[in-house]
């Protein structure tokens, strides 16, 4: 540091110290924690009570049953039913899975290519296995076939294996529902 910089720094330090000395120790921000507005200014989020836990309809007795029921519906649909199927799945799930199904329902409702092509998907759940070291997470293996009644795009394609990760949780009422759904391929 140059001499000139040192001098400026010293003055700033003294000035700061002087301020603190004349005003004494700063009082604790007594009202900050209790003021929602102050908290919002500090965190840019207006504090609100946590939302009530999500509920799901037709929950399953076991985690595996919840997954199998969800996945079976997820992979078996046609262009006419897919939007309603996804909307139904949304009501049977919570969290991210519900959001993803809601999004899929909205996206497929007006999907011209899906409707025009007569796209359909069908398949079976081949395996559901707990993911080691991750409570509530499961690896799901399906074998699926995608077809189209009005286009040859899928003609000749064999059924293919697919893997997805599913997370389940207990929901109010004691049943199990999917809380996270992530197809991997």
């Amino acid at each position, binding site marked *: 540091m140059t001499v000139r910089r040192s001098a400026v720094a010293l003055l700033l330090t003294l000035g700061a110290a002087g301020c603190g000395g004349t005003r004494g120790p700063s009082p604790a921000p007594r009202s900050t924690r209790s003021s929602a507005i102050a908290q919002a200014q500090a965190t840019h989020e207006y504090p609100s009570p946590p939302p009530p836990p999500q509920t799901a309809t037709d929950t399953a007795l076991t985690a595996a049953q919840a997954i199998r029921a969800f996945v079976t519906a997820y992979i078996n*649909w046609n262009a006419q039913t897919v939007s309603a199927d996804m909307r139904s799945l949304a009501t049977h799930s919570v969290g991210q899975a519900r959001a993803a199904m809601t999004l899929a329902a909205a996206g497929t409702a007006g999907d011209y290519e899906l409707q025009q092509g007569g796209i359909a998907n069908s398949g079976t759940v081949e395996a559901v296995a707990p993911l080691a070291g991750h409570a509530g997470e499961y690896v799901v293996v399906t074998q*699926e*076939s*995608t077809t189209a009644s009005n286009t040859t795009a*899928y003609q000749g394609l064999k059924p293919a294996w697919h893997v997805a990760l599913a997370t389940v949780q207990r929901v109010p009422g004691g049943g199990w529902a999917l809380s996270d759904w*992530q*197809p*991997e391929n």
Partner: protein
Amino acid sequence: MRRSRTGGAVVLVGVIGAVVVAGFGGAVLALITSVFSPGGGGCGSGAADGGTSPAAGIVLGPPGTGEFVGATEYGGPGDPTSGVIGSSGANLLALPDSYAELGGETFETATAMGGLPYLTPLRITWGGHSAIAYKRDIGFGGSPIDGLPRVLDLWWELAGRLGIPYDDGLWSGPVQIERPPETGAGNVLDQSSEGAPALVEPPADEQDPGACAPAALEGAPAALEGAPITPGDRAQLLPSGLAAAPAGAPLAVREIIAAGNQIVGKPYTYGGGHGLPLSEIAPTYDCSSSVEHLLYGAGLLPVDYDAASGTLESFGAPGPGQWVTLYANADHVFMYVAGLRWDTHNAAGPHDGSAGIGWHPLIRSDAGFVARHPVGL
């Protein structure tokens, strides 16, 4: 691995090794004997499309679209040295809808179509109809076929099903190939994470600053955001049309890819993008201005560089590069970056993989072009 036209001995050893390792030796020999014997499948009488052959299960469809490429056939009674076990370990006799991607003797080097994963389906069109085939093998390849790059080898039964005449494994000719749409609910509903960028960028000490040999030019941009990362050494074409940069690539390569992602899908107009600083995003591009935008992104061209494609015939150093290769002539320029081709719309034929200027998954002929590469890349 299929028989090599140039290194048969090596590959034969590999085939024998694969058979032994797999413990299939006796069974495969028996299978070969039964299938290749006169009564075992009637190879000489066109068993590939016979009613009892597994090949009969290959569904024929109407002609597809896509890129014309050079293809060969392999296997069958006239080509016993190719064996019957693909490099993936699959028994090709039981899975006749198979093809091999050409270009090298290992999975990493046989990348004539960009290094497709095993079991990647392709719709292959020949003679007025098409069939889906799956990658289960690799092979060396060779010189162009009818001016088209030699990129795939068709298992003889697949070729026969398409109507290609059997020529003891020596047939070659152009076929049309395209990637069929992704299947499965997760893909159709656009919820699959496949192809999504890795969540974690490689730490700085895994990057290779030494490979970024070209000195950054004054005024060139710093490292660009916008290039998701994929593991390995090859760029990946994402469903969105953007490219994921390989984690193992030098920083300059990733910057080129990021710059490309900035302008993917921009309309092509002749002369588009010229007359503007390369730091600006133009409303349209042509081949040379888009390539120059990418090179500028890695600091390989000054911001005011503005040249036609022919000028790029003298860019950098001659020949292909390890990561980046430009192919330029007076009429056109395109570029490979970590295995993906940057090109203009349908430059290699209808539906060649991009809806505009952007990344293309399949290679194209480089006949008539001068190969150049950035020094150090």
